């Protein structure tokens, strides 16, 4: 075990290498550039390739090509690059190409502030491409160490589910410096609870089984299996077709291979939710750390509040919103992206409120003030763009 002090970007790099990633294609963008830089230094040392692409679209397409050829691949970007992934993401989802995509979210809209955290691509990570008829797997770390383990897990899930897996981080996680433990032997990897699946090869003949089965090896070209892969609606053998029947089967598979195995994906942490608290704070990524501190402190002061920290974001963990309560969604945006999902998932009789910050974390004091107001049923101060009752 190697113990060091490093950034989330370094943690993601090391996690990817341990998971077996041997091709990284990327395009420099703050705050994800260091992943590319680290990869360009580390990959050749382990026999892997770094390619700097001419744009983000190319970067993800190169990763798709590498994965189609049998390499584990990853790319990393921030919001303005993530939107350019929309084109290849469809290809990867539709053709069931395993790979990992990192999005270090910065504050927007559009280019926004390069060095400030945001959480503006929550919905875009659910709907990152054209055509619909798919599910996504999205994981959100809130620390440097977790950025490491989630990267290993992302490769594991990508391989088992045969699809791209998105790591939705934010600038504070990727740029932040924290202690980091990196396992150095397979035993240490296992002791950390991490699993690595080797790359498998689909020998055919069925490349797109019309079932929700997982653990089907992905299509790999170059083994002369007659494998075919395209962005058109496929027949089970990979021929392009205009028949709606095949489209139904294809869509069913893309949606339900994820939904029907949700238990393998869903991860969250809960704090003080067993005694039916009146108020439950919900967050993911770096603001969740402030939320957990604030809730612990509030409990010490006798306030009946709890917290849910989402680690897997999609498929959305509806089932963890069991308690009828007031919910407070704490996010790094002003439009309240998580709010609607909480609203949909919470039990009848619950309420949802929103606390947004942009480009900086909320403080414990701000959250405490908000919690007190909500518990007392008081009207919230009119800072509409930050505090709003839904």
């Amino acid at each position, binding site marked *: 075990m190697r113990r060091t002090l490093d950034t989330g970007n370094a943690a993601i790099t090391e996690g990817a290498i341990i998971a077996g990633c041997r*091709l990284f294609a990327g395009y420099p963008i703050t705050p994800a550039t260091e992943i590319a830089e680290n990869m360009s230094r580390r990959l050749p040392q382990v026999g892997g390739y770094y390619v700097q692409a001419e744009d983000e679209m*190319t970067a993800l397409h*190169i990763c798709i*090509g590498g994965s189609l050829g049998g390499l584990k691949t990853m790319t990393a970007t921030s919001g303005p690059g993530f939107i350019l992934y929309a084109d290849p993401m469809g290809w990867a989802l539709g053709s069931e190409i395993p790979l990992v995509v990192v999005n270090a979210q910065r504050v927007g809209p559009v280019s926004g502030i390069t060095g400030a955290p945001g959480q503006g691509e929550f919905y875009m990570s659910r709907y990152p491409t054209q055509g619909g008829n798919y599910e996504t797997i999205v994981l959100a770390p809130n620390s440097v160490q977790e950025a490491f383990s989630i990267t290993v897990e992302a490769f594991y899930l990508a391989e088992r589910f045969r699809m791209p897996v998105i790591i939705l981080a934010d600038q504070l996680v990727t740029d932040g410096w924290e202690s980091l433990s990196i396992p150095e032997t397979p035993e240490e990897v296992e002791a950390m609870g991490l699993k690595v699946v080797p790359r498998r090869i689909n020998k055919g003949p069925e490349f797109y089984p019309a079932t929700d089965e997982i653990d089907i090896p992905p299509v790999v070209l*170059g083994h002369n299996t007659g494998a075919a892969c395209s962005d058109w609606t496929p027949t089970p053998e990979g*021929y392009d077709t205009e028949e709606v029947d095949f489209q139904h089967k294809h869509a069913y598979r893309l949606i339900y291979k994820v939904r029907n195995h949700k238990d393998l994906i869903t991860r969250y942490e809960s704090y003080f939710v067993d005694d039916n608290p009146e108020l439950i704070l919900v967050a993911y990524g770096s603001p969740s750390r402030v939320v957990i501190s604030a809730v612990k402190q509030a409990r010490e002061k006798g306030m009946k509040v709890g917290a849910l920290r989402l680690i897997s974001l999609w498929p959305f963990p509806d089932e963890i919103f069991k308690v009828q309560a007031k919910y407070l969604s704490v996010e790094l945006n002003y439009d309240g992206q998580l709010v609607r999902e909480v609203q949909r998932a919470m039990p009848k009789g619950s309420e949802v409120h929103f606390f947004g910050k942009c480009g900086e974390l909320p403080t414990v004091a701000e959250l405490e003030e908000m919690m007190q107001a909500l518990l007392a049923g008081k009207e919230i101060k009119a800072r509409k763009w930050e505090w709003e009752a839904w």
Partner: protein
Amino acid sequence: MDYLATKYLRPRKIPSTACSGCGLGQAHKKVVKAIDELGLDIGDVIWGTGIGCAGRQTFNTWKGDNFAGTHGRAYAIATGLRMALPPDKKIIMTVGDGDAFGIGFLHLLNCARRNVGMTVIVLDNLGYQSTGGQYGWTTPQGYRTDSSPYGNREPNWTQEGRDVLNILREAGATFLARYTSLQGQEAVEAIKKAIMNNGFSLVHMPYPCVTNFAERALGTRKPVEIYKWFEEHTCSLHEKGPEDFAFRTGIYYDASNSRPEFSNYMRTWVAEIQRRYS
């Protein structure tokens, strides 16, 4: 095509769904013939395509491994694939003119710059024909299409002394040629050279579209008219050709195996780094 088709193509894809009179079959056959004459096996070739007439008609026709990218992106996918595949595997791509010289041109230029080992055959039907016949980047200026009802106002990539092959040469491509689908064995020979170049090769192959281009531009769907028009507008690279527009054909540039191929270079270089740091 019978012998070649039985040997190399998937029965399910024959006959193709191309319009009758389409020149794509001639062009497609030249590629398969070149592969056959080189003695390549099905397992030696990974066949890539894009979208449009060329993409749809040639995807998964090859008995071996296949892929098709979204419009213009096949070259970026092929770059990644090249890194992962054993060096002896050939990547041969049959794409359209819009795919290569329009939406995918940036990727194509960067593949040429990196000298990524692939053979790109641009099957050019002079515009966007699978969407109904709009002008493209090889439609001659002045010609009428569905989206240029008063005649195409834009100069194309091969007129007024301009040649898209010049740009690709400057970008670093190591083999470049142009033949129309109407030409014979000389075109096959050029494709063979393109495949044998361990680097980025491109063969531009214009072919007649009877259904859309001929109908709008020449006012007839009679195949003979567009074939005649093709003959009249074809000349060698060194000739001036007709005033309005010409397919200037021949081997434009052959610097085969003169520059290191991208994935080979990367492999050697990565091995060197590993040696240095182990």
